[in-house]
């Protein structure tokens, strides 16, 4: 690209400020749409993912299922050794696995738990619940129970429990009341309601009961083992890979959240594809706009091009001038569009603070650099064909006009 081509291209753009500004505004609009769509689709994916996985474990480690053994016996008889259903599935030796899990990259929280089914009884009212026994300091490791407390406190003494707001409403329970919990192991104890939480997940708010780890051991007759280990990772989308690593490292059965939420992934994929199509159309619009403008410009400037060619300007110089003009329109338009989009998105709240009815726009996922790069490249490509046409102009015909 010769300095003279740069000079002529810039001079022409500056000599026609109205036309140049209009073209750049068109490009800027396309870029702003591109960025807005990226930020919206990205923000929506973040919001949906957050809402879906924010209060659930990303990976659950449990005792691996053992297939019933087939014992080889001489003759025709076959003996199958079946699973002992009279005993609760538990991870008996779990302490050595915890440091291994904690040291695994991307793991942000680990919570060994004792889980079981029980009934909450208050007078004649009975409701089935899922009890979660958590270790001290691990109450909010998976779901932010402490932040979700709407009444009482989050402390868990040996005789205290935390219940969901829907359960409290269904049974007419309040903080400070005592209820009886009967486990599926035939044990029953009385607990005082220390706090009521609202997670915003109907099943948890109606059925989850949190209690002290030691109390859960007693209630479910698990003197040493645990039911499961729940894990949080960042990013949540990395869960399947980390689950594989933990499966190999611990020998436990590892289930990533994605296995139970494939529909969400399909939805996000479809949404991302829609966004890509809209962004592609933005780019195509930019390409068509620039190509049309350049073609019109070339028709208008035929005599100029002809005289330059007659005076010894090479085809390469003519191509350079027009490609450069198109590229500059694309680049400057893209910068303006990106700046405008950035300014327009600035007042919008972050995805984490979006209220119902608001647009979940994540400015960080606006793909600003990608938009600028792709638009500049698209503008350059859009100019090549018109520029080649310009270089092919016959000086004799052009000058004769």
């Amino acid at each position, binding site marked *: 690209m010769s300095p*003279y081509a740069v000079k002529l291209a810039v001079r022409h753009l500056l000599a026609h400020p109205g036309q140049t500004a209009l073209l750049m505004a068109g490009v800027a609009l396309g870029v702003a749409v591109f960025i807005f769509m990226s930020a919206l689709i990205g923000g929506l994916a973040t919001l949906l993912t957050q809402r879906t996985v924010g209060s659930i474990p990303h990976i659950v480690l449990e005792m691996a299922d053992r297939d019933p053994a087939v014992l080889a016996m001489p003759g025709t008889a076959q003996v199958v050794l079946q699973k002992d259903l009279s005993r609760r599935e538990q991870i008996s030796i779990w302490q050595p696995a915890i440091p291994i899990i904690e040291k695994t990259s991307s793991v942000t929280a680990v919570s060994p738990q004792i889980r079981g089914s029980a009934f909450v009884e208050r007078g004649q009212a009975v409701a089935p619940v899922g009890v979660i026994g958590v270790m001290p300091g691990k109450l909010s490791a998976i779901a932010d129970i402490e932040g979700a407390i709407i009444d009482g406190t989050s402390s868990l003494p040996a005789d205290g429990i935390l219940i969901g707001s829907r359960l409290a409403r269904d049974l007419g329970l309040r903080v400070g009341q005592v209820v009886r919990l009967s486990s599926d192991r035939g044990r029953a104890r009385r607990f005082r309601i220390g706090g009521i939480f609202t997670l915003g997940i109907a099943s948890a708010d109606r059925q989850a009961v949190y209690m002290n780890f030691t109390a859960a051991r007693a209630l479910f007759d698990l003197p040493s083992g645990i039911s499961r280990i729940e894990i949080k990772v960042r990013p949540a989308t990395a869960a399947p890979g980390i689950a594989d690593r933990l499966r190999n490292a611990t020998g436990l059965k590892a289930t990533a959240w994605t296995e139970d939420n494939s529909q969400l992934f399909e939805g996000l994929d479809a949404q991302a594809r829609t966004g890509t199509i809209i962004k592609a159309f933005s780019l195509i619009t930019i390409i068509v706009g620039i190509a049309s403008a350049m073609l019109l410009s070339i028709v208008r400037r035929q*005599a100029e091009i002809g*005289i*330059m060619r007659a*005076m010894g300007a*090479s085809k390469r*110089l003519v191509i350079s001038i027009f490609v450069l003009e198109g590229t500059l329109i694309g680049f400057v338009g893209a910068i303006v569009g990106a700046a405008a989009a950035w300014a327009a998105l600035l007042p919008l709240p972050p995805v984490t603070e979006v209220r119902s009815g608001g647009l979940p726009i994540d400015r960080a996922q606006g793909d600003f650099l990608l938009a600028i790069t792709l638009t500049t490249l698209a503008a350059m490509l859009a100019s090549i064909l018109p520029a080649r046409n310009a270089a092919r102009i016959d000086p004799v015909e052009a000058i004769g006009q």
Partner: protein
Amino acid sequence: MNDAAILAVSSMTKGFGEGEAKAMVLKGIDLEIGVGEMAALLGPSGSGKSTLLSILGTLMRASSGEHTMLGTDLMTASEAQRTAFRSQYLGFVFQFHHLLPDLSALENVMMPAAAAAGRETQAMRARALELLDAVGLTDRCNYRPSAMSGGQRQRVAVARALINNPVLVLADEPTGNLDRQSADQVMDLISSINRTTGTSFLISTHDEHVADQCARRIELLDGRIVCS
């Protein structure tokens, strides 16, 4: 070819179209232009003057015949070679000035040299100022074409034709779009340049007054030279 000739064509023809529809515009041209010569190319409309000038200026190829200039066979030269040759040895003045509207007079004069070199240099600027001085437009060097009169624009176009120190300037009706006073100024300028620099000029014109200022008359009729 005469030793003093810078350009020679012989048996040159040029036709447009194909088959029976083919129209022969030039029908066997033999012509030489000498060093420092100032010749007028005359003929009625449709006689082939513009086509001949376009071929001599390497803007168009002849259909057949020989075309050499300064020892270069321009019939067989590639398009890139012809472009480079044009830039180095030929200058053009057209009926319409065809100055680039976004450039000043000075930048327009520099254009052929800058386009060939890919950049503007101080030497080009100095030479362009010298030429603008020669055509009496030093005070207009920063004016855009739109701010100048028709005669001034054509004088800028003459200066532009000379920036690369061409051996031959081809002028197609250089005064055809000017009033008599401006036309005389332009012709005086061309004659002066021809005398002082030895640059050859071939001027296509309908105007006998212009032809009278040239040392040689070449008359073209129906694609043939009838008087040279």
